[in-house]
């Protein structure tokens, strides 16, 4: 461990003296049914080495055949990122020895990627609400490697391990690599920009339905390139590539910590080493990995086992026409339709509730009520249960049904929460819970009127105040009615009845 002689500068300080540059390489595992070059299934979490065959094990004599569904997904991602789709391109072999790579070369793409030259507009979270257009260099298709498990060492890494096991289930799963152009000019917001980009790309890929993009399962993986140059230097500094960045939060922290580290190095008059670095989730910092000072020569050459790809322009046009509305535009449209401020919309986004609110509104609920349910009661319940909002146990249809009963006066707000308990406990739909638990509000007007008359008679001085226009005092009477009906009356209806009886409505 190097003892740092100087105090670490903070980011605001760093960007006063240095210009940060970031670049991101995101790998997305496609959710195709079968692997990239063979017919093996791709499910996550199977027993090691059970989803393998001669092809994905790279056995002598076996040959790859490209998966059309994976090519289609890659083209759709490229189109959604405003890229050009190549009319003719080839796979290439990337040669290097590593035991989790069965052939000791990876079938990838080199100088002929499937998609090139696009962009993604990213809303960087923050008070300014600025949009950054991130240039997309390329989108290409390749095969994933297996996974190596190092046993016997303290860190789970190869250093110090006494034994290594390889699981080839992941070998050959289609992997799309999306590479940005260098992103400059983001200053102190470089970490937030990196995070916002990855989040936006994740949302975009998810909207296409081609991957479940779960960072914690590794179906979306991110390498972060970072460099600093003295302000006004006019040329880019030496970059590092940070790997093992496995969450959105880590993307932001990895960029921040690396910018600060590089600034400290430069401040000491030293130079930044061209290297890969390994990010540590717990500590929030990184340690050096492989040096890239002597560049690895991958000896790329066109993959002779595969015929070139030549996507039919009509097919590409059809894929373009079939693209869903981009998530960003979709969100903007919803925000306008729902009449939300930026802050309110951000709250919906942060809660991961956009789709849920949208579906609830589609089921007939007002945006206001839908948002209240999902961001209020249901977010609280999801939090308590430690699950995603989407997995809380009640869906948009349930919420819409609940709200409808409230609107119709069948349920009070309080009763509605009780019904929700039943729904979350798996007792059925809101209607079924209401029936089973006999929870409908007292709406028989005769019973209610009698209770209201009784309350007025019992509190003559309060009734007098209300008659005199002090409407706020009516709460006492409403409370008395609610008490008398065991809480099964609709408070709003009771209030209206009280006011009309006292001539104040």
């Amino acid at each position: 461990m190097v003892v740092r002689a100087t105090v670490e500068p903070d980011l605001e300080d760093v960007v006063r003296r240095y210009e940060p540059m970031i670049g991101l390489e995101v790998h997305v595992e496609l959710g195709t049914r079968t692997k990239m070059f063979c017919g093996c299934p791709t499910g996550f979490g199977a027993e090691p080495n059970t989803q393998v065959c001669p092809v994905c094990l790279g056995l002598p004599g076996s040959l790859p055949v490209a998966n059309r569904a994976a090519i289609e997904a890659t083209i759709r991602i490229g189109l959604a990122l405003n890229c050009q789709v190549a009319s003719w391109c080839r796979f290439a072999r990337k040669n290097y020895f590593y035991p989790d790579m069965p052939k000791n070369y990876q079938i990838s793409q080199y100088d002929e990627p499937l998609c090139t030259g696009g962009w993604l507009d990213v809303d960087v979270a923050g008070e300014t609400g600025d949009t950054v257009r991130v240039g997309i260099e390329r989108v290409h298709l390749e095969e994933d490697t297996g996974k190596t498990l190092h046993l016997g060492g303290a860190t789970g890494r190869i250093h110090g391990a006494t034994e290594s096991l390889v699981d080839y289930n992941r070998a050959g799963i289609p992997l799309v690599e999306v590479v940005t152009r260098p992103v400059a000019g983001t200053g102190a917001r470089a970490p937030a920009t990196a995070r916002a980009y990855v989040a936006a790309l994740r949302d975009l890929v998810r909207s296409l339905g081609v991957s479940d993009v779960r960072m914690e399962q590794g179906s979306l993986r991110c390498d972060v390139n970072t460099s600093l140059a003295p302000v006004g230097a006019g040329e880019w500094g030496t970059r590092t590539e940070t790997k093992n960045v496995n969450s959105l939060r880590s993307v932001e922290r990895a960029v921040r910590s690396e910018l600060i580290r590089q600034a400290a190095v430069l401040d000491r008059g030293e130079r930044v080493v061209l290297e890969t670095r390994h990010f540590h989730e717990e500590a929030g910092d990184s340690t050096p990995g492989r040096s890239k000072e002597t560049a690895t020569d991958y000896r790329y050459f066109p993959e002779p086992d595969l015929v070139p790809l030549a996507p039919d322009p009509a097919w590409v046009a059809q894929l373009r026409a079939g693209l869903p509305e981009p998530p960003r535009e979709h969100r903007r449209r919803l925000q306008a339709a729902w009449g939300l401020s930026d802050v309110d919309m951000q709250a919906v986004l942060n809660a991961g509730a956009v789709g849920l609110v949208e579906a609830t509104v589609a089921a007939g609920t007002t945006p206001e009520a839908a948002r209240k349910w999902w961001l209020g009661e249901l977010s609280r319940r999801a939090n308590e249960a430690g699950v995603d909002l989407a997995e809380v146990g009640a869906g948009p249809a349930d919420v819409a049904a609940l709200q409808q009963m409230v609107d119709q006066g069948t349920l009070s707000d309080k009763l509605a929460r009780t019904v929700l308990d039943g729904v979350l406990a798996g007792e059925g739909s809101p209607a079924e819970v209401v029936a089973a638990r006999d929870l409908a509000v007292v709406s028989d007007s005769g019973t209610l009127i009698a209770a209201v008359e009784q309350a007025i008679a019992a509190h003559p001085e309060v009734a007098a105040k209300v008659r005199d226009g002090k409407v706020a005092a009516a709460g006492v009477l409403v409370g008395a009615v609610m008490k008398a009906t065991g809480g099964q009356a609709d408070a709003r209806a009771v209030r209206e009845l009280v006011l009309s009886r006292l001539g104040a409505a």
Partner: protein
Amino acid sequence: MAERAEPTELTRMTATGIAGLVAAGEVSAVEVARAHLDRIAATDQRVHAFLQVDTEGATAAAAAVDAARAAGAPLSPLAGVPVAVKDVFATRGLPTTCGSKILEGWRPPYDATTVARLRAAGLVVLGKTNMDEFAMGSSTEYSAYGPTRNPWDLARIPGGSGGGSSASLAAFQAPLAIGSDTGGSIRQPGAVTGTVGVKPTYGGTSRYGLVAFSSSLDTPGPCARTVADAAALHAVIAGHDPGDSTSIPQPVPDVVAAAARGATGDLAGVRLGLVRELAGEGAEPGVMAAFREAVDALTKLGAEVVEVSCPHFGYALPAYYLIAPSECSSNLARFDGVRYGLRTGDDGTRALEEVMSLTREAGFGPEVKRRIMLGTYALSSGYYDAYYGQAQKVRTLIARDFTAAFAQADALISPTTPFVAFRFGERTADPYQMYLADLYTIPANLAGTPAISVPCGLSGGMPVGLQVMAPAMADDRMYRVAAALESVLPAPAPPQL
């Protein structure tokens, strides 16, 4: 040396002849298999054509054919005929070594498409034949398991890399064999053993399960003692395979009919192009003499022979020796001791890279190492354009030469190889002398076009081959020409072992 063994009548027969007897019930497939297995047992100590004889598997496969026949099931045209398979094809459960120590003991869990098609058609796989390590060589001297001897003269090489397959035919150990042709590995052994060897159109036969040497050149193909037998075997193994991306999704030309037509001895209206660049230079006088006699014979059959020029063929050999090693350096990277085959030095003290390195050091022979190094260098950043890139351009030019030549002729002819079988050790000291064996065969590999080698007489008592080349997916044309030549110049019989 073992005692002399007279080949039985069955082992002297053609494949189609055997199939006829089996289909008619005049002989059982088991008897046929037994005759060939006995012949192997009696002769292979001297010839060493086989690396692996599958007595049990062959007997079982033959019995299955007999049972199918007894049950009245329809039989494929070559059902019950034994076949020898070059050890570069994956055979389920049967050791597959590619002539290399690095794969010693490896039993593939699957059959190559070619092998699966043989089995499905009722052919009886006798075993796996010897070859230069990973199909790199022209003599079988680079086999890690010792060379195969030419049945015509046991002091001479049987050609390579598929010397085992061709020698097994010349030694009457098998009526049919399978080879793979990357630069001539079927045709040159065919020529120097007096047998027929065919390199089909690239993509016409499936490479699935053929352990790759040079993916863009490797082509499985049939070997036989007669053109008709080769055509019959061709028909069994050829055809689109969805498991090979480079396999051509088109119907196979009717090579059996073409061979039958050629056998009538009529070549009227056929124009043959004599390739100026593949005749004369570097060739032994005896080879050229036999070739000229064959050309005269073809003319007498009615063919019109014209001279054509393929000016870029002179660059074929150097281009080949950049492309093939480049692809091989990548293809052979998987042999690292991690998953299968040889592992050396894994004593618990060594790091992974060291074990990989020791394994490859011990497992690969000198020619394979030479080509891996050549290819690694040619693909290196900064050299790629000058070597691999340039060689690919040559390839385009050679393909254009072929196109131009085929505009003037239906098929092209040349000697198959510049010299007859040489003596062991004659060309191992200088790799280039060995590489010259493929001088005339390489252009067809670079262009992906089909070619056949058919016997055309002797030079100094050793067989000479004539090569007929056809346009891609017109394999039938070369069969017709070869069969016509065979009808007037039948292959001489090798001396008895």
